[in-house]
Structure formats: C-alpha cells, structure tokens
C-alpha cells in the first residue's frame, strides 16, 4: 500500500501524514505539486498547510497546480483521495467536493483538540469506524467554516455524504460539518487532522481508525491506468 502525499509550496503537514501512515505499515511518497505523476500511489492525501500562501483564497491557486489534473482523473476513476484541512479547501476549490470553507465564525484561528462524531462509514476514511463513534482530533484552521447552498446541503444529507460532524461546533460550520465525501465515498475532505492524533504521546490516537480505514479501502489496481 503506497500513499502519495501532495506537497504544494506552503504545505506543512506532509511529513506528519507520512509518519502516521508509515507507522501503520504503508509506504509514503511525497509528490511535488509540479509533477503530473502520482508515482503509482494507491491513495492520495492532500495535507494541511498554506498551499501557495493561501493567497486569494485557500486552495484557489493550488487547484491549478499540474498535479491536480492527475488527482482529479484519479478521483473520478474511483481512486481514494483524502484532503485534510488545507487539502479539504483545495478539494472544494477544485470541484472534487461541493461547497466552500470560509472564515471561522468569530474570526479566530482555532488550534485545539475537538470531539467529532462519525456520521457515515460509507467512505474510504471511515469504513473501519462505527457510526456514532466520537473521536478526539486536533483542528488547526482559520477558514474551516463549511458552507454550501441549501440544495447542496440537502443532497449531502440525503446521500449520506456527511462523514464527520463536530460534537460542539467550533467554527460555525453549516450543520456542524467537519468532513464530507463524494457520492461514491472515495473522495473525502475533513478539517480535523487525523495524522496529528496518531499516537497517545500526541494526546490522542483516535485518528488511527481513520487512517487504517484509508489503508484498508484504498484497493490497489482499483483505479485503471490513470497513474
């Protein structure tokens, strides 16, 4: 199992993700944003950080990076793609997930551990979790306030695309949304950082159930010849 981790100028969580998935037995390869190759990765993670300085809007410039074209093809052919924090923002800007992330209600950068509840197990990131399971995961963002059109929200609810909700909404996110997935469940975006909750030494190991799910469900060769 090989996890490709995209590195934009300004990404800063790529090594944390690599460390966490390597600890679970996967191999990790960093993918510079200027490449068009996913290096035969079985799953792709867009890590947290400030891609391209978050200029204009978080993710607005990153979506035009060459690698995103290949990530888009990979996602559309069923490949597992997970965007964490800034990676979630990139996925919405790229149109791979609906909605947008705007400034937190209260205009404060939030850096603390919050409780999130698993709302769906029909995604590559939650397949090994249980509905209703509560996880302690760190958040670390200024623009994490998920928003979307009311019609989109109904679609997300009806199709079970809301993957994680905050137990106590920290940022004003619509419907308490902390993470969503594509209708097929193979593309997931979330604001909390599972890789930063990958060992009790870090204060919580609750992120492991999510990363293990990713490693278990990102089936090699499920993706055709895109890579």
């Amino acid at each position: 199992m090989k996890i490709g981790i995209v590195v934009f100028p300004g990404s800063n969580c790529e090594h944390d993700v690599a460390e966490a998935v390597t600890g679970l037995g996967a191999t990790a390869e960093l993918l510079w944003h200027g490449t068009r190759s996913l290096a035969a990765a079985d799953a792709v993670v867009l890590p947290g950080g400030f891609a391209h300085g978050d200029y204009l809007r978080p993710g607005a410039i990153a979506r035009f990076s060459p690698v995103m074209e290949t990530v888009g093809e990979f996602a559309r052919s069923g490949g597992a793609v997970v965007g964490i924090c800034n990676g979630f923002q990139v996925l919405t800007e790229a149109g791979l997930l609906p909605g947008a992330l705007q400034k937190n209600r209260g205009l404060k950068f939030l850096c603390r551990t919050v409780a999130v509840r698993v709302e769906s197990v029909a995604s590559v990131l939650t397949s090994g979790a249980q509905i209703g399971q509560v996880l302690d995961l760190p958040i670390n963002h200024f623009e994490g306030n998920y928003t979307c059109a009311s019609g989109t929200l109904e679609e997300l609810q009806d199709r079970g695309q809301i993957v994680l909700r905050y137990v106590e909404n920290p940022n004003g996110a619509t419907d308490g949304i902390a993470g969503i997935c594509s209708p097929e469940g193979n593309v997931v975006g979330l604001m909390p950082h599972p890789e930063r909750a990958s060992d009790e030494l870090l204060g919580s190991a609750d992120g492991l159930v999510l990363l293990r799910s990713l490693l278990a469900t990102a089936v090699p060769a499920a993706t055709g010849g895109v890579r």
Partner: protein
Amino acid sequence: MPAFPVLVEVTLRAGVADPQGATIERALPALGFDGVEGVRVGKAIRFTVEASDREAARAAVDDLCHRFLANPVIEDTNVTIGNGDAP
C-alpha cells in the same frame, strides 16, 4: 490591441455571514460613527486586460472571475471596465 483598466470587487454573497463586516459595524458606535449599517468587507483587484474592444474585455474578465478570482459558492463579483488606451 488596447488595454482596458479593470476593477474587480469581490464580496461575500448576500446571505453569507460576514464576520469581518459585522465586527466593524459593531465597533463603529464606540468610535462615534452612528447610523452606519450594512458593512460588508470584500477585496478589490485591479489590473489591465488587452482586448479588441470593451465587450471582449468584459467577456475575458467574466471568465477570469468565474474560474479564479471568486468562488461562486460564497462570493459575488462586480466588474468595472474603464476606457481602453488608444491602440
């Protein structure tokens, strides 16, 4: 081709909460500015665009706004195009 000066104003769509605007509005009475309402904070982006005429310039800028300068999920744009230079 003439170059047209362009001003793109990006604002949050009506109905999208604007905490910056709300904070400014709340602060105004304390500073002695009364009767100010409806504060909305946005961005102003200025540039020039080369185009054969004004209509072509507007079409190019509209495309640019839609695909890059604004996120249509949460933002609106208002485009002002000035007079083109003599070619």
